[in-house]
């Protein structure tokens, strides 16, 4: 078995999501090669070479890959990927954008968002917003899959000593162009990797109240902040904070849902958290059914009290 892992990065540092994908690759078993496609991304390749379990790093360094345009990166993956038994990427917005395109270029079906490896060709994945788990077997010559990070413990960032090899192949389709990006800056831990997540829903009332009430709690706990779709749609917080079927999937040690009713779509993004706390004024809120501890009360008084007591 030989597995190609597509590195997730910003040209400066390797994103932690890649470590979860390498962990899934180890479950499959075999030689693991990491492909770093970027521009000025030598540092990323060097970091990938240190990752435990990685035997080789391929660095495709070209302006065509600077912004991870799917048209160019997928063509590279399809080119470099020939001969591997598996090609894996993280279930991030980038992995989801690139891998299906590479799969079609290779004329193979792919499996999205795997949460368990049953055998090198059989995997589990959630369907229907996580309300059912499908076991899927692939009879393709090469298995392409995206990996749900929260389902695999990350491998160590050190301990490896892989050789870095340059890939000279340049794929520039010339049909798409990067214009700009708007990245939300935050001092808090990254949402999908945080040990504690504090999330707010429509119940927090406004963007102002979201920060007034939930910032002190997140600060006290060193937590990342999330939100329900209702809170994002109402404009309380930016959309990259959305937890759910259509947002981010998190599985922290502690998830505190504040003013969130618990729609199916939200539960799909957080119900694998170790401990769930729900704070809501509604005794009948569906979130209570998945919560380990739930407290019925007004979040405007409960949360400040909670902050003062932890």
């Amino acid at each position, binding site marked *: 078995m030989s597995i190609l892992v597509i590195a997730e990065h910003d040209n400066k540092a390797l994103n932690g999501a890649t470590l979860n994908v390498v962990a899934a690759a180890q479950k499959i078993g075999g030689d693991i090669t990491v492909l770093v496609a970027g521009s000025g991304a030598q540092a990323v390749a060097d970091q990938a070479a240190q990752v435990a379990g990685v035997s080789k790093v391929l660095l495709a360094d070209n302006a065509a890959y600077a*912004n991870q345009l*799917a*048209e160019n990166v*997928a063509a590279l993956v399809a080119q470099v990927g020939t001969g591997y038994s598996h090609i894996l990427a993280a279930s*991030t*917005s*980038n992995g*989801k*954008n*690139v891998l*299906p*395109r590479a799969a*079609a270029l290779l*004329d*193979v*079906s*792919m*499996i*999205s*968002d795997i949460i368990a490896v049953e055998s090198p060709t059989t995997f589990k994945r*959630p*369907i*229907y917003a996580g*309300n*059912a*788990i499908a*076991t*899927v077997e*692939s009879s*393709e010559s090469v298995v392409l899959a995206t990996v749900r990070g929260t389902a695999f413990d990350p491998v160590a960032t050190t301990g490896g000593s892989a050789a870095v090899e340059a890939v000279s192949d340049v794929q520039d389709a010339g*049909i*798409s*162009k*990067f*214009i*700009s*990006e708007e*990245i*939300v800056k935050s001092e808090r831990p990254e949402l999908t990797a945080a040990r*504690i997540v504090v999330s707010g829903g429509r119940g927090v009332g406004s963007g102002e109240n979201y920060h007034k009430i939930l910032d002190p709690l997140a600060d006290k*706990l060193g937590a990342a902040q999330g939100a329900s779709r209702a809170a*994002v*749609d109402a404009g309380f917080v930016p*959309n*990259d904070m959305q937890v759910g*079927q259509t947002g*981010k999937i998190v599985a922290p*040690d502690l998830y505190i849902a504040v003013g969130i009713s618990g729609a*199916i779509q939200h539960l799909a993004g957080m119900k694998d958290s*170790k*401990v*769930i706390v729900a704070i809501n004024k509604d005794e009948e809120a569906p979130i209570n059914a998945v*919560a380990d*501890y*739930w*407290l*019925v009360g007004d979040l405007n008084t409960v949360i400040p009290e*909670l902050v003062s*007591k*932890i």
Partner: protein
Amino acid sequence: MKALVAVKRVVDANVKVRVKPDNSGVDLTNVKMSINPFCEIAVEEAVRLKEKGTVSEIVVVSIGPKEAQEQIRSAMALGADRGILVETAEEIGALEVAKILKGIVEQEKPELILLGKQAIDDDSNQVGQMLGALLGAGQGTFASIVNVAGDKVQVTREVDGGLQTVELNLPAIITTDLRLNEPRYAALPNIMKARKKPLDVKSPADYGVAATTKLKTVKVEPPAERKAGVQVKSVDELVAKLKNEAKVI
């Protein structure tokens, strides 16, 4: 320009589905079915582009059972001009769906191809990207803003850290995110009018595609149940539980 919109018939987003006792799949008998929410957003976007004068004709396509005609009619009631149903008895794979759509695109020659970013039943998030590859066209996935200007389209995409804007040559594929727009409700006269709009019925074989997939669903199980939680009466009790029982803070 012509716009092609792909829509899927799926279980309604508010239905809590149940796994069949024999683990062969999810029980969909007597369950409310609807147009996939992301597909509805794709239809709405096409209709808005038509209202702006950018798009002149909207063709809506669905691949699925005979009953998917209902979803095509819903899209027509929202403003699509005509429909194509590619009838398949069983659910087929994303790659095969993309291949059928490629066949339709080659016949219809639309400049804009709009799809939802994912179907809420299989949650794959693949078809738009695959179609982009098969056509050699650019892809603007997870779109929250779409601006057509001349022979190019600028798409603002929802990415993990925030937003990214790309410019694509036409024809291009766009897959919609939830925040692209808020779909309108179909008015009764429009529902009546939609009944008279043309709808062609085709089969995968018409596009030279075998309705199959190399991915086999071995079994479908319910997710692990969480054990029932407890209601705490006060903040003190909550803090005590988190510290001593759950040991997470």
